[in-house]
């Protein structure tokens, strides 16, 4: 082997070496960073001016991309039909509630035993404030939103190998990291170490900023006392009457925070995609798909498995198996086709498009992700630990625990997101297990953070996206190289066919990407139809 050649260091491996990636956030960030250059380009409801002259469109897939296309094209005067593999609308927009039955690839069937009102969103579960398109559709279609709590200062950061495995409150780690760093920087500034970089005037302002934002005392130290306690809270909280005086706690030392790697968990709260305010639909994310489907009640044919897509100069013919009729093959025809089938599926379906588009369809691996919904007999995280919504991050294989962002402080049962893996070894390992084994392990891991798991757990479900029959994966996992080589080919109109979905966007794995992709696709398609 030549010395000049070294094994390729994948982006992920690099992240792991510097210690930034054990949580899914960095991997996720690497995957989506190209999409962050600007805000959503959505500028209000689409205007498709001009007469489609009776043209027909067949839409493949009744997820959010397909239904967006179908709804808007119908408004513009097209004759629209939709084929959907599942027996419900929404695709990955999906909520599992008590009584739902779900069979994954391989045949394992789970019956969700949640109590009424409790649910798991196996797919999308939170909406950033800057996803203007999906928010606008929620408003237009009457989907009620509520806040999704991403950052809860009283949730935990946890490592099995730090602080004796004891979870640490986010507010402690955040305040103490900020305070420790501010103290160091103040020290360096006062010593003149930054004099070349900071003017004399700025130096004084910088010191005051460090004192204020880092909660330093009058001597620019970060110590137990009123200043630090104002950020991190108290060891003994202020009360009323006798013995009411609060007692400040001792900050965690910077060395301990650095070596614990718990700072990694803080990144998830800084990312643009996860900044306040985030939203969720009341009653589950699936309410969005249901609302979309209500706009075109008679247009969606369910239980239709597309097996071939052919086009010629005059139109598009789609062969599909009618699953309610024992898989009898039927054919549907239209002048145009908007295909919103995930590439993991579409790459297996015969389709006569250009070699370049076919290469693009075949170029995108699908991410692995696993989610767990665990029902407990009481909301111990609220009652015992005062955690109201938010997310605990851990280096255990479950990666995170998310507390419900609804029905706060009302007692009763609750369902936690008991784990959410995104790519990486553990995601595959969980996927390879039978569902009951996944849930069993999620309970055992979670009990390391919340011992109440052991006595309060009632039932659980898990969804491993590589075993989801209608997608064979979570989302298009574009590499920078593949995107450069294939993305434009994927998005071009090919004869009478145009693709849509999160995979045809720079916001992969988000509903916003699916909707924006569909809007862009039908705008270009409409232009072509009107001109023809």
């Amino acid at each position: 082997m030549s010395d000049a050649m070294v094994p390729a260091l994948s982006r992920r491996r690099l992240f792991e070496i510097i210690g930034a990636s054990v949580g899914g956030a960095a991997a996720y960030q690497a995957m989506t960073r190209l999409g962050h250059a600007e805000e959503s380009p959505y500028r209000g409801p689409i205007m498709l001016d001009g007469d489609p002259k009776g043209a027909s469109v067949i839409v493949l897939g009744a997820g959010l991309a397909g239904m967006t296309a179908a709804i808007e094209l119908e408004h513009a005067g097209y004759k629209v039909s939709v084929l959907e593999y599942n027996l419900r609308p929404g695709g990955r927009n999906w909520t599992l509630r008590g009584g739902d039955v779900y069979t994954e690839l391989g045949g394992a069937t789970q019956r969700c035993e949640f109590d009424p009102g409790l649910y798991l969103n196996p797919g999308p579960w939170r909406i950033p404030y800057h996803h203007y398109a999906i928010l606008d559709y929620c408003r237009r279609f009457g989907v009620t939103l509520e806040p999704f709590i991403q950052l809860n200062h009283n949730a935990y950061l946890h490592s099995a190998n730090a602080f004796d495995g004891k979870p640490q409150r986010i507010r402690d780690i955040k305040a103490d990291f900020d305070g420790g760093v501010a103290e160091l920087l103040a020290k360096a500034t006062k010593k003149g170490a930054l004099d070349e970089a900071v003017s004399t005037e700025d130096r004084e302002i910088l010191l005051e900023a460090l004192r204020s934002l880092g909660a330093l005392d009058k001597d620019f130290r970060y110590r137990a006392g009123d200043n630090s306690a104002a950020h991190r809270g108290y060891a003994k909280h202020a009360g009323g009457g006798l013995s009411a005086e609060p007692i400040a706690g001792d900050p965690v030392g910077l060395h301990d925070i650095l070596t614990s790697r718990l700072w990694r968990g803080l990144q998830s709260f800084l990312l643009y995609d996860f900044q306040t305010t985030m939203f969720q639909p009341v009653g589950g994310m699936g309410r969005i798909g249901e609302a979309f489907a209500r706009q075109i009640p008679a247009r969606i044919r369910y239980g239709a498995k597309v097996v071939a897509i052919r086009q010629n100069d005059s139109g598009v013919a789609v062969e599909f198996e009618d699953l309610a009729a024992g898989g009898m093959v039927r054919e549907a025809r239209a002048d145009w086709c908007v295909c919103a089938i995930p590439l993991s599926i579409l790459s297996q379906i015969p389709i006569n498009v250009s070699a370049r588009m076919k290469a693009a369809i075949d170029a995108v691996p699908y991410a692995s992700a696993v989610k767990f919904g665990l029902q407990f007999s009481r909301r111990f995280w609220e009652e015992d630990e005062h955690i109201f919504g938010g997310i605990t991050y851990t280096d255990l294989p479950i990666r995170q625990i998310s507390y419900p962002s609804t029905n706060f402080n009302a007692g009763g049962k609750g369902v936690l997101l008991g784990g959410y893996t995104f790519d990486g070894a553990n995601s595959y390992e969980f996927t390879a297990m039978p569902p009951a084994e996944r849930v069993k392990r999620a309970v055992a891991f979670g009990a390391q953070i919340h011992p109440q798991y052991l006595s309060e757990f009632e039932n659980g479900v898990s969804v491993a996206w590589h075993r989801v029959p209608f997608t064979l994966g979570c989302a298009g996992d574009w590499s920078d190289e593949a995107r450069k080589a294939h993305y434009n080919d994927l998005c071009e109109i090919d004869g009478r066919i145009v693709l849509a979905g999160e995979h045809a966007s720079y916001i992969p794995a988000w509903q916003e990407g699916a909707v924006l992709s569909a809007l862009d696709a039908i705008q270009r398609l409409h232009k072509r139809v009107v001109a023809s």
Partner: protein
Amino acid sequence: MRLVALRAVALVVSATVNAPSLADDAPANSAAMSHGWEFSEQGGAELFGDVCAACHQPDAKGAVGAGAYPPLTADKKLVSTGFMLTVLFRGLKGMPPVGDMMSDAQVADVINYVRTHFGNAYPDAISTADVSAARPRTSPP
């Protein structure tokens, strides 16, 4: 019962340096899960059971939904180790390049395992050096 016994074996193994892989040659979910991004499983059976089986299923018979995971049973394509290396390092359509998360020895082990199980009986084993030579490389910056 069998699963419990396997787990007990795996726990012992994980505590031993350079221990051989599980004596039982059937794929199964390991007791221990990996700690980082990459797979810590050792031996073809463990790797198949924890990684490949996620999609191709524990019996390697594949699965069918809106799309399908192909079976790896009595699979004539597996005659080509080059094909398997390409799939593991480049992915194939929706399949991720899972070899990126394995060492050369792990890739060799899992390829050799699949090629000698599930109705496959290819006698030519692939070596760690073969895998190393096939792993995508880039020049240093």
